[in-house]
């Protein structure tokens, strides 16, 4: 299935790099990705976002900005440049935030990060997911 090229891809440039950094913290399995797997991950996310409303994409883009803003405010650096423990602390604060909107924004990014990993059928053998043969007797 090809990517719909009618609309601009969401994960490109800096946003793609930030997403990869977030994904490495959220789903550590992604740290061992080959360049091809990294690209597949982004393709899966872009494909899904292609189906979503412009409003959803705008909210997601704002949340990316918020993450970097919080990183700068708390640690003086953008998220990508933080140490692993600081990244995890910031993500934990969003995950467990008393502000519902922050938790929901975190959920959105966490879900996309997981989709980029466990949505890759090449990883299914690794986790033991097997499709029963369609010729099963």
């Amino acid at each position, binding site marked *: 299935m090809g990517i719909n090229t009618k609309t601009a891809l969401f994960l490109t440039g800096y946003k793609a790099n930030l997403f990869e950094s977030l994904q490495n913290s959220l789903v550590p399995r992604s740290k061992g990705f080959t360049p091809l797997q990294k690209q597949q991950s982004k393709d899966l996310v872009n494909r899904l976002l292609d189906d979503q409303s412009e409003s959803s994409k705008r909210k997601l883009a704002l949340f990316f900005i918020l993450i970097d803003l919080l990183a700068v405010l708390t640690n003086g650096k953008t998220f990508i440049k933080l140490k692993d423990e600081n990244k995890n602390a910031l993500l934990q604060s969003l995950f467990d935030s008393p502000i519902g909107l922050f938790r929901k924004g975190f959920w959105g990014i966490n879900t996309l990060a997981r989709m980029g*990993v466990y949505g890759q059928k090449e990883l299914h053998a690794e986790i033991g997911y097997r499709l*029963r043969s369609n010729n099963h007797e």
Partner: protein
Amino acid sequence: MNSAISSPRELSYDIVIVGSGAGGGTVAKELSDLCAKGFKIALLELGPRFKPEDNTREELPMARQYYFNSGGFQTTTQDMTLAFAKGLGGSTNVYTGVTFKLPESAVKKWNVPDITLEDLDPRMDKYLKENGAHLEDENNINKNNQLFKAGCEKLGWHVDQFQINTRNCIGLGTCNLGCARGAKQGTAVVQIPQAERNGVEVITHCKVERIEGNTVVATVNGSSPDEYRISAKKIILCAGAINTPAILMRSFGEKFNPVIGRYLTCHPAMIMAADHEVEVNGTEGPPKNYYSDQFVKKDRFLLESCMYFPFSFARNLIGFGADVDDLVHRYPHLQMVIALVLDEAYAHNRVSINSKGEAQVHYKLDTKIQQAFVKASRATARLMFSAGASRVHVPGANHFFIKPNEVTRLDEVINEKQFKLGQTTIASAHLMGGCRMGESADNSVTNSWGKVHGHKHLYVADGSLFPSCSEVNPYLTIMALADRVAEGVRKDILSEYL
């Protein structure tokens, strides 16, 4: 594209049915014998016609193919996703075939004159038979389902097997991604082929924009918007609980009826998992066979066995980091259970349309629902440990993995304080209400025959008719109501036009 519509942009039928799921497919079949009397009937479907051989069973491509928003349609508060499908057969392409008759308690709560079990029972029985609903042979029930049953029985909970509507199923286990064998007896397999044989014309890739008088204004196969004007003596909306209210609102405004779009219920659901030492291999064989209604009366949730694919499963895990990877990598050892909350019908839970006319869903996961989820988490953890789980992961817990030695203090480990909206993946696939039946236009959208109040030619025949939730998986109830609506339409059109 259907050849019948390639040339004229103005089409004329006696009956136009919008949507082809449990409601539309049923209505099409039930009215199709009218074609022999000279009536022209069209069945309009937004999506394409799928063939079993085109089904690759791959999770994300199939989710994108079958579902609106790939199955991730979000409510406006962004704390719940809704799964509903497009394509000939609608959501009957992607359900697991779980077949329940509407319980008496739900009918009583509906409180609609003429809608009684005496009326609906024979209709439900008809579709039980037509769809091949049966109890799965014990030899075909997989370990995941066996664990559910064993866990409930050890605890002394009521557990029972539900029927599933398959024929010649070989247990591929990917029902929620469509059936690659055509074994699941949805409307695309059973009712629509019969309707087509009798003369009903199917028009796929048809997006209904609105209704103007007796005309359906539509876009077909990417044509210019509003290019097709399809007139009909009778129009029956079966586009589901989200899209039927949206079509009505686009046609007549959001205020044409005081309850249009309102009283939406959806059985908000969450998925929980347990790790077992033994292999479970829950994706092999029919995914769902058992349920427990132990907590329905008191705590208003239903438990069912279930199994989901890698990403659909992973997205339900609460938290992040190594624990998530750890649990997903135990996939063949996982037991899964789904808890469905039997939600109350409130006016504030509703469908509306945005400035572009697109449907949006406003739904409040209130305290009562959240409390039910917490109780469901505790009950499920008990069930899973009782079935022999080595560790359990459920929402509302104060740590990622609950161990067997914590089973005596689950009330402390799983609590309301820990259950936070936005942390837990809550999803719904049972969309009901929005065009509720009733006696008057003050408190309902249609009468008990699905006829829209104040519109002689316009009917609704889908899950949006439910005045409140069905308390069980709803497709059989939708078919029974659609059968009733078809009976009414038949009477009306025969008396008016013959």
